[in-house]
């Protein structure tokens, strides 16, 4: 059993940087990673904007030292890169020295290859290698292989946009229960025609920069990313005299039970998730210093989440902002990249600006943090809300 769930390493690759330091620089400098699609041949190129990672698959493969016969999806490539960064950051030289697991999240999985070779598989033997790379668990298995996690617990979670937050949650419970001494948690999702067209048919994509919590918001920008944290038990921290970046202090998941893709107007699921997380942390609402909101800039999400924040925090809402104007919505990876951003906020006592905001929503009298703010932070709460009514909240803290 472990009282604390310590974070000792982080890794990330997103549209605003190829590693933790670059992402942090973009966040504090207000540098958006949103642009037109360049790597996917879609008819919607001029109708949408995305948070696309600059590297091509070939460049990513070279970075990982993969041979040409590999069958990595882009999701697996991004995930492996971020996870390896996290292990390096945690100064782990022998991954199997302790019981170490991997819990990864993805919703796209190998769909980028499936959609590219869907009919080609039937004719071309050379592309058939990607068939086994389609299922969600495959990208996780490739990450495990890259990290050298052989026998231990390895699994994958897919609950749409809350997936990686849920991976952190499950990982934390595996540490607390003593099932594992150490676990790598996070998620990865690449852009694909499947998700671009899926979100397009739902009419929730913006044709310009997304504007979280703005009255005139008109949809989200999809993004791609991967991010991982290394979680370690008290035992490992003590034995290895580890530097701790922060703690996973609380977590909660709830289902909105309202609609398959839309959130309830009153934010039931998000309210319950935040309340559960605060309870698990043994905090009260007053203990939360900053909220990294899900804030996708869809009409529905920001209204629902805004109402939930009011229900939980009442009149004393902590500073909050969404970082999705920087990265786009990275789907399954969102909860993981925002976990990295939350820990960075804690480390540097920084609250990121909610970019692109102009007009307060008329439904309530709350405004996100609009400028970079220096503030002593002890806790950060991060929300991730997804399809199927899946609502998740994770609380990070400086102290155990």
């Amino acid at each position, binding site marked *: 059993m472990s009282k604390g769930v310590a974070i000792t390493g982080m890794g990330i690759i997103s549209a605003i940087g190829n590693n933790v330091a670059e992402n942090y620089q973009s966040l504090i400098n207000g540098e958006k990673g949103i642009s037109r699609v360049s790597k996917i041949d879609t008819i919607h190129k001029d109708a949408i904007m995305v948070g696309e990672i600059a590297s091509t698959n070939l460049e990513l493969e070279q970075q990982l030292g993969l041979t040409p016969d590999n069958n990595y999806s882009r999701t697996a490539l991004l995930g492996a890169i971020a996870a390896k960064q996290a292990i390096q950051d945690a100064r782990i030289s022998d991954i199997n020295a302790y019981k170490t697991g991997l819990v990864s999240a993805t919703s796209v999985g190998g769909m980028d290859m499936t959609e590219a070779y869907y009919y080609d598989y039937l004719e071309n033997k050379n592309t058939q290698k990607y068939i086994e790379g389609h299922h969600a668990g495959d990208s996780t298995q490739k990450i495990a292989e890259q990290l050298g996690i052989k026998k231990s617990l390895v699994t994958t*979670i897919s609950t749409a946009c809350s997936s990686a937050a849920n991976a952190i949650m499950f990982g934390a419970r595996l540490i607390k229960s003593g099932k594992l001494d150490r676990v790598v948690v996070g998620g990865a999702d690449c852009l694909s025609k499947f998700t671009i067209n899926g979100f397009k048919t739902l009419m929730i994509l913006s044709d310009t920069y997304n504007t979280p919590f703005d009255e005139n918001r008109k949809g989200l920008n999809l993004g791609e990313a991967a991010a991982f944290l290394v979680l370690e038990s008290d035992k490992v921290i003590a034995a290895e005299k580890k530097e701790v970046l922060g703690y996973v202090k609380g977590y909660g998941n709830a289902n909105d*039970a309202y609609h398959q893709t839309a959130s309830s107007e009153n934010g039931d699921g998000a309210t319950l998730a935040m309340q559960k997380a605060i309870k698990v942390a043994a905090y009260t609402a007053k203990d939360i210093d900053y909220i990294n909101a899900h804030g996708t800039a869809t009409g529905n999400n920001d209204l629902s989440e805004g109402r939930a924040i009011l229900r939980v925090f009442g009149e004393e809402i902590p500073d909050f902002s969404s970082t999705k104007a920087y990265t786009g919505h990275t789907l399954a990876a969102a909860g993981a990249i925002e976990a990295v951003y939350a820990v960075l906020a804690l480390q540097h006592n920084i609250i990121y600006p909610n970019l692109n905001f102009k007009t307060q929503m008329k439904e309530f009298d709350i405004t996100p943090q609009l400028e970079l703010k220096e503030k002593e932070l002890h806790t950060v709460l991060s929300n991730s809300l997804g399809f199927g009514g899946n609502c998740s909240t994770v609380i990070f803290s400086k102290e155990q």
Partner: protein
Amino acid sequence: MSAVYITGVGSISSQKTFDNTEFLKEIFTYTDNVISVVNPNYKEYIPPAAARRMAKGIKMGVVASRIALKDANIENVDAIITGTGMGCVRDSEKFVSAIIDNNEQYLTPTSFIQSTHNTVGGQIALGLQCKGYNFTYVHASVSFESALLDAQLQLENNEADTILIGGVDEHGDHTITIHKLINHIKPEKTESTKVLDSKTEGAIFGEGANFFVVSTKKQDSSYAEVIAIQTYNTLSETEVSHAAQLFLKDNDLTIDDIDAIVLGNNGDVKYDTFYNELSLNLFKETQQICYKHLCGEFNTASSFGVWLASKILKTQELPDVVRLNKKSISNFTTILLYNQYRGENHSFTLLRKC
């Protein structure tokens, strides 16, 4: 630590398993390499309009969960945790092919919405109006085991009292076609009753939904106690035996304590060797049970194995059709399950009679 009990089951498979008053009484045999579920009358469980609208995998999952809840004599749960290897394949295929065939035009959202992996869990929550914890694990052949492990952790630590868990996977035509290309599926039509003696590669692909109510509250009608679950990313053939011994030792058990071992043999000559490590050596003297000749291979087929073991422990009956060997065992107290798929994603599960 609270004990964890299986208090209700619901199964939709290639056998008539949806009727909990029966236990493999009438066996459906197939001569094919892809087999489908025996459908209950879905309209008995969900409104006819909903039954028509729902995709197959969702329907299977929703109805199997209803059966499990009814079996457990409860109306709602604290959490819903599902496992699925591939998610809702039919709708994924429908949407991908529409994107390609229509050059990204004239698309509608329905099949996209229904394609997400956690659609089944979300639909069950909607139907029950359950606002509790809701997770979906999607890790090939340990998707269901991950769900069971998650539930066990929560119940043992009193984070929940009653949880609905399940494994669901459905067929998709294109998915079947491409998996035939890479030899995952038997090249020839095979008689299901003889598949375990097969000398060829590949499995008979199946589909199914198996749901369970797990709870800290033991009832007279409970099926089994969940003692332990362990999953392994990879194990070599020679490592399987050692892992089994360690798993038992960690639970203060020896091989002699195991009344039956439930093995996931699927007739793939290349990978059944992992099971042979146990059945020909370590568990040579143990009653051996198989099930994939009945339900086919799918990523959450092990949930059918757990259904089978649970029924055996509750009824103390062992249908002949699932015997791999014949031992003079008259009482089932402890059952060990082992599963893997193509040499990866191994799991051991321990169940005990209540």
